[in-house]
């Protein structure tokens, strides 16, 4: 059972990593405009009128 002595800290560390990632996302404004981000992908910025980009 000695294995839990380092498994638990390892699990906690990974969990903390996830938490830190979430906090970073929150701080950098990723949650400011949820509607906009979801729908923006439907439009191509660089090809007006759906024309294929010129080769």
């Amino acid at each position, binding site marked *: 059972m000695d294995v*839990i002595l380092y498994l638990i800290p390892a699990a*906690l560390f990974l969990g903390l990593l996830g*938490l830190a990632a979430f906090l970073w996302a929150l701080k950098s404004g990723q949650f400011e405009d949820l509607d*906009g981000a979801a729908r923006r992908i439907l*439009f191509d910025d660089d090809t*007006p009128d759906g024309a294929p*980009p010129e080769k």
Partner: protein
Amino acid sequence: MTAQVIKRQNASSFPGDAAGAQVAALCWHCGALLDSKSTQTGFCCGGCEAAFGIVQKLGLTTYYRKRVLDPKLHPPKPEPGPGTEDFSAFVATDPDGSHRIHLMVEGLHCAACVWLIETALAQQPNVTAARINMTTRRLVLGWAGAPERVNELTGLVSSLGYRVVPYDPAQLSRAMSARDRELLLAMAVAGFAAGNVMLLSISVWAGFGEGMGPVTRELLYWFSALIALPAIAYAGWPFFRSALGALAHGRANMDVPISLAVIIAAGMSVYETATGGRYAYFDAAVTLLFFLLIGRYLDSRARSLARSAGERLVALTATAATVEEPSGARRLLPPASLKSGMIVIAAPGQRIAIDGRIREGTSDVDTSLITGETIPARVQPGSRVFAGTLNLTGMLRIEVSGAGEATLLAEIVRLMEAAEQGRAHYVALADKVARAYVPAVHGLAAATFLVWFFALGAPWQASLLNAVAVLIVTCPCALALAVPVVQVVASGRLLRRGILLKSATALERLSDIDTVVFDKTGTLTEGTPVLHPDPAIPRSALMAAAGLAGASAHPLARALHRAVPQAKTPAGVIEVPGFGLKLITARGDLRLGSRRWCGVAEVPDAGGEGPELWFVEPGAPPIRFRFFDAPRSDAAEVVAALMRSGIAVEMLSGDRRETAGEVARNVGIQRFAAECAPAGKTARLQALAASGRRAMMVGDGLNDAPALAAAHVSMSPSAAADISRNAADVVFQGAALSPVLETIGVARGAQRLVKQNFALALLYNAVTVPLAMAGFMTPLVAAIAMSSSSLLVTGNALRLARRRISWT
């Protein structure tokens, strides 16, 4: 090159393609229904045709294919008339020489609108940033070069049919308020801790059966403490702070038992772990926080969304004023820096930013924002004008008598704030429950200790342990979730119908109203004049008059032109501010305007009251056009439904007695008061409150704002003046009045569910408290009981989302 060709093909094939055939009767740009005449052009007005041209020229016609117009919102139809508002006073300049302006965009329907505006702006030279936040409908625009280019850029957006208004970002709350953010962070931390502590706790519970050694258990408990204690210290802070605040005022709210339960559970668990005890409640403490934070966050988020939609702005004070200096030079100043005695110039189409007296010029002024009156007032030198009114027809020179805090507008805001004070001591049901609950629970815990220690002779540690178990198990999880969960479900349901709840206690207050007071203009009615159809008027005269009317921004002229939109406006129409329109032809003058302007003698009136326009042609008798303000299509039904359910309905109006009486008759309201000033409306609501009635006020004008604040609860249509939207508890969108019924129905349903939830939570306590007092409580039992009661309460609340609301 390829792109070029395809672009042109797309654009030219557009008005004739397959999809086009089905929707041929709609305007290409704004989607409005077309009449037979304008079907040929495909546009309802010149503004839309021009907008379509701009979109085509920029190569953005994908917009029309991808957009989804929301019939409840204003269509993207460019405002006719001069849209020459000067925004340069709101431009901020960065140290690197680039400029920025923050704008609110109104009329965004879907992502295509966002894309169109962003792409169109980005194609302009030197534009460095154009980004719209779709959630808050705010646009940040950045460019290099001259700051004056702001008007050119915003002009582009307005000519596409979207209204923009500048705002000061420092004054408006961000989309995610500081409070939401704090709750979200706390929730993330609590969620992380709850997951990990639960993982360790389950090992411990399993260990009881599998023969886990006390050393391993202690180790797991210490790990739990390591995670739980910092998490509680951080994530519990929103509750601790609110509990401390309440205690400091000598009150108890729901956060007091929550804080106590969490702190005591954590403290006892540490003690147990340190002394090698069997039970620790770290998981209970952290999951309790996590569940509650979810409820709190969703609740707070729903309301800040409603607030940011309601808080459309400061359009009234946002317009900079053009000041004319004694030397004749003109400059733009923000209204705050204006002083009495300065001369301000108001061009036609501009909002007047100050209170003052007219020095020079005649015009018509739209005072609907202040008085609720639909028909503009004629002003001439010597007349007083007020901030927030709209100058319609002529250029005015105004001497400032009050600006900023000294205006009538500011006075109304003060009146509103004073009225709001009266409502501040409303006590929410949850807090009432908490007031009774806290002493009861603490009494039980004390009794448990005393009985175990004295009557049963247990050692003090064991007695204390049992008393603490009572405190933990009565943990107010279900009780504290009872209200927020219902709130979230109810506001979600209302949001789908375009109804925004701004106040936390609005639903509760809505559920017990017995009187509804409506404002007339803009609430019961649509707020725009409509031409009274009169078959006696010859068609040719109607066409000629409507043609003339097309040249003016006066609301009555606009209404006449709307009635006959195919009428062509001839060139050379002269507008004489304050009087009317004139066209000089070879046959003589055509005139459209007031009775005096058309030279019609004052005769004893034959045909009733109301706004009117006269039209004279050479060699024909003068013709009178009458207008009325049409009630909202379902106003009569809504009033009838309210009365059927036993709610008294009244109407208050600032309009003349005859006009008000006619509308009241049309929608079936018996009790009404006309010619009410803002203070009069407030007085009526206070009188109702004094006689023990709980009244809801529905109103939209600026003059209604104090009454909205004085009412037990208030609603406002979203087209209302910004300030009354801010004063209202509930804001609804759309042209129908039925949201009033829906809101009351949902509020009553929600209140029933809240009471059921409280009953469920108390029932759960009735079962578990005796267990805890008898000393049978283990962490496993506590966790199961707590989660199941929370789930039960949440499940019960979800029933509101689908249930039909009946109206009887």
